[in-house]
């Protein structure tokens, strides 16, 4: 939801074309349409065929390779290969066009690390050849704070916030620098309703939240990093 909101915000505040992408799944077309956001879906098979086609300088050979049952099975058993190609496709597109922004609604923390580590891993695997040059280009792009901005969202629980900070550390280890952390779904006091006469359970929840913020502020400077 927050990624959709960001897409809408960027669309209304910049002159660039904004696309919403959900990586290896199809975006919710209905919600995109109702919010006036342009979805961008890059099916793995198409991305891979296009990429291999470019490398082999033949689209028809690439399509034939992709139809080969063994390669299909290989892509299934090594999903990070597909991740790297999809990521490469997104980066290619952005490198070619200065007037596009792609908001990538990423998978959960453990899996986005698999995606973002895929160029580094395949760099180790290939070592030489045409692909390595491409991988270096991808890494340069991802590590450039002018091109990539990452937002880590956590719900306000100890487990989620710790996971968010672990993710931040790992993204930094991968060379990403422009990272922002956000505490989402916060139940906080609001002027919309009376603060007096709140039922015990809401009062208890608000007090627990306050205690949580204080603890996190002391240990992790969370509030100063919240947006």
């Amino acid at each position, binding site marked *: 939801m927050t990624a959709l909101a960001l897409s809408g915000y960027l669309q209304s505040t910049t002159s660039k074309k904004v696309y919403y992408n959900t990586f290896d799944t199809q975006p919710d077309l209905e919600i995109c349409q109702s919010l006036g956001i342009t979805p961008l879906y890059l099916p793995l098979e198409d991305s891979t065929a296009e990429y291999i086609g470019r490398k082999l300088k033949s689209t028809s050979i690439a399509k034939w390779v992709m139809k080969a049952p063994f390669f299909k099975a*290989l892509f299934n058993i090594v999903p*990070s290969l597909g991740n790297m190609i999809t990521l490469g496709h997104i980066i290619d597109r952005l490198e070619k066009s200065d007037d596009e922004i792609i908001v990538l609604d990423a998978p959960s*923390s*453990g899996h986005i690390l698999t995606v973002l580590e895929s160029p580094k891993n395949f760099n180790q*695997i290939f070592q030489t050849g045409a692909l390595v040059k491409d991988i270096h280009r991808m890494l340069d792009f991802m590590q450039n704070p002018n091109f990539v901005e990452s937002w880590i969202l956590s719900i306000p629980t100890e487990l989620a916030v710790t996971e968010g900070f672990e993710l931040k550390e790992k993204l930094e280890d991968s060379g990403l620098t422009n990272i922002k952390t956000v505490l989402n779904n916060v139940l906080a006091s609001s002027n919309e309703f009376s603060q007096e006469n709140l*039922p015990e359970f809401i009062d208890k929840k608000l007090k627990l939240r306050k205690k949580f913020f204080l603890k996190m502020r002391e240990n992790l400077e969370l509030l100063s990093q919240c947006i």
Partner: protein
Amino acid sequence: MKQKKIEVFCGTGGVGKTTISTSRALHLCQQGRKVLLITIDPAKRLKQVLGLQDEETGEVAKIKVENFGMETEHELHALLLSPEHTLNRILKNPTENNIIKTLSKPYGGMNEIMAVLEVQHQLNKNEYDTIVLDTPPGKHFIDFLESTRKIQSFFDKNFSEVFNFIGNKKKKPGRILTKLVSTGIDKLLTYLEKVTGKGFVNDFLEAIHILYDHREVFLNGLHLEKDLMTPEFSNWFLVTSADQLKGNDAQEMIKASSNFMHKDNYLLINKSWHKFLNNWQATDPSLEKLRDKLLDIEESIQKITKSYSISKIEFPEIFENSPKKQVQQLVSIWDSVDS
């Protein structure tokens, strides 16, 4: 609720899968069952809940149940999945193959496949009355469920014949390539070589050879899918959360898992405020509005999932910040669910 050999907890991120599955494992221990709790989520929040160390990843660890207010006679073991550990166990020795080594790293991308093989290994050992599985969030739990099919297609008998033909380990990669020319797969490899360089193709053939040498272990993992689809063997819990607008996610999850689940499955609505909201007599219009808004959020999951034949269990919000204390309270809710 019948106790089974394996219980699977799935759901989107942030719904409380890890605390719920840990509480279930502790509850089953209290019933006198010997339980193994496995997390296959690479984020490994279970480590934080159980107080495990990074060094314990990949090894079965005995959990101090007294930390959760239970008597020490109860036995709970836990395993944080490590694809590398699982693969090394299968191969018997750590491999030097560059491709296998890289892909079996924590974020190398073979998490779900290795998870299937690890769970099957633990089932084969038959040391536990119940295995409780904490799965990765969202779409990745479907990847886990589909892993057996991916293994099956990779070790398809047609490929198998080709790779048996590749020959034994003593043969040098160059000779392997010569042999492949006559099988038709050489064309594919020639294209691959154009893009990746020759070194990769040799490593690739060696990796395939190593994996095919252990084909039987991989194919043994296929039993897991059949077992998971058997009502006598497994309970399924699709966990969703009432505090966020998770109705559509819950619906997607039910649809996506319908090919795998059987009649003993449950939609577990966690962090519910239902019972508190129903008892709340709001005293002014702004609070009435707030109550109605919160009730509306609560009921959206019920409405969206109404048409699906799945039993629903509601777990109330636990007013504790500490995950350990949350788990302790959730254990007592399982007592009432089972009774």
